[in-house]
């Protein structure tokens, strides 16, 4: 598996898009720091971008890599390697190279700006951890979609829809239901609904760490009570981890019966 990972990783690291992605984060980091002149504020702006963008890029890279490397995967499948290892290697190759683009692209400007002397280092660290999780989650989800869909165009469409649903539509439904069921106690519902969407979960996780939860009112207090504790943090991280694990398990299950 490590060999496949290595080659997928090399292949991606040499593609133009990895550099575009890396440069984008690099420039974004510098521009934000230049405009805000404050690490903490830059982290908040970054969060809004990362939470939408990393899932989108992860989704697109995942589907694209799968469909583009189909024939090559066939070549690998004819070699004496377990097919699970081939796909896990590819999956990790994509996720790790995307994560590297994110961490280095944002890390370099922040370190140069004096991140290590700033109190925002933990918030920034959390932002990167969450961003990395989102990479691993959405690449896994998109790989699942690609594995289940033979048609490239359809697969692409489904993947984008999945991203749109989790990044935008889910929030809409969530808000509408909050308004509709206004008269009922909703703190448990909203807590669980947040947990079920990795993008929402990541957003809340960072917002609450950033001490701006006072703006969130009563629900904010409930959230703060839950996520602010070490236990809440642990549970949220475990759920993010489950969001990685479950798609991977399904991928392996699917592979057992898949024809190439």
């Amino acid at each position: 598996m490590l060999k496949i990972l290595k080659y997928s990783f090399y292949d991606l690291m040499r593609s133009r898009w990895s550099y575009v992605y890396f440069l984008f984060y690099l420039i974004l980091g510098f521009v934000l720091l230049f405009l805000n002149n404050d690490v903490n504020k830059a982290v908040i702006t970054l969060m809004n971008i990362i939470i939408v963008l990393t899932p989108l890029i992860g989704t697109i890279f995942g589907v694209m890599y799968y469909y583009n490397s189909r024939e090559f995967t066939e070549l690998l499948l004819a070699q004496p390697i377990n097919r699970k290892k081939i796909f896990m290697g590819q999956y990790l190759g994509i996720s790790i190279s995307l994560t590297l683009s994110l961490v280095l692209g944002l890390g370099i400007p922040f370190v140069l700006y004096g991140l290590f002397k700033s109190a925002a280092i933990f918030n920034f660290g959390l932002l990167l951890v969450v961003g990395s999780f989102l990479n691993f989650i959405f690449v896994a989800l998109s790989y699942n979609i690609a594995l289940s869909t033979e048609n490239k165009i359809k697969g692409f469409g489904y993947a984008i829809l999945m991203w749109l649903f989790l990044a935008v539509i889910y929030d809409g439904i969530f808000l509408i239901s909050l308004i509709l069921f206004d008269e009922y106690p909703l703190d448990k519902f909203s807590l669980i609904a947040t947990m079920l969407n990795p993008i929402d979960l990541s957003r809340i996780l960072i917002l609450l760490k950033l001490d701006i939860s006072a703006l969130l009112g009563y629900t904010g207090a409930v959230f703060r009570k839950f996520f602010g504790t070490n236990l809440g943090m642990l549970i949220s991280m475990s759920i993010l981890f489950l969001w990685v694990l479950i798609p991977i398990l399904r991928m392996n299950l699917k592979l057992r019966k898949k024809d190439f």
Partner: protein
Amino acid sequence: MIEFKNLHKSFGKLVVLNDLDLNINEGGIFAILGPNGSGKTTLIKCLLGMVIPHKGKITYNNKSVLGKWDYRNDLNYLPQIANFPPNLTVKELIEMVKNLRPKQSNEEDLIKLFGLDDSLQKKLGNLSGGTKQKVNIVLTFMFDSDLIILDEPTNGLDPIALIHLKELIQKEKTKGKTILITTHIMSFVNEVADEIVFLLDGKIYFKGTVDELKKQTNNDNLEHAIANLIAKQYA
């Protein structure tokens, strides 16, 4: 050497392999022929473990291959469409495949034979279709295995490369290897094949030597003899 028993595979409603039985003995060149969509590639992919049959057994050297992967170290496969990661160079790709198979390889001779020396440092994405196919052939023949499977090996090759390929196939044959070839080019079959396996409607319709086929169809020309077999399907 290879045994397919009651092999059954369908994609949705389309039955591709229908209770197929086939024995392939060790040594010799076997051409797997049949009209488009007759299940040639599916049959080969079942053997390779890429397509998973619904029913039936496949054994290679008396061992079942279904769900296994290590047996693939004893066979070489040339896929139909050669499409490699565009960002790797030819040399890296060869090194990678070598790395994946714990086996001796002799790629240098093959690279020289097909004149790929100048292309070694080029990225695979910049190669022409024919050159990719040459790389594909190098990757297939560089290992010493008892079974060689070639899916449309002549695709996009120039005449010189084609001659080299034929020589290679003959050389491997004299070493006592088993070679399975699928192709639509009958002159190629006529030249190299010892035995023909003709697939039709997911079953083996004919298995025997080229001469037997000509005799059975009362036709001296292989191309017409095969056309004769296929025509029965259209009738």
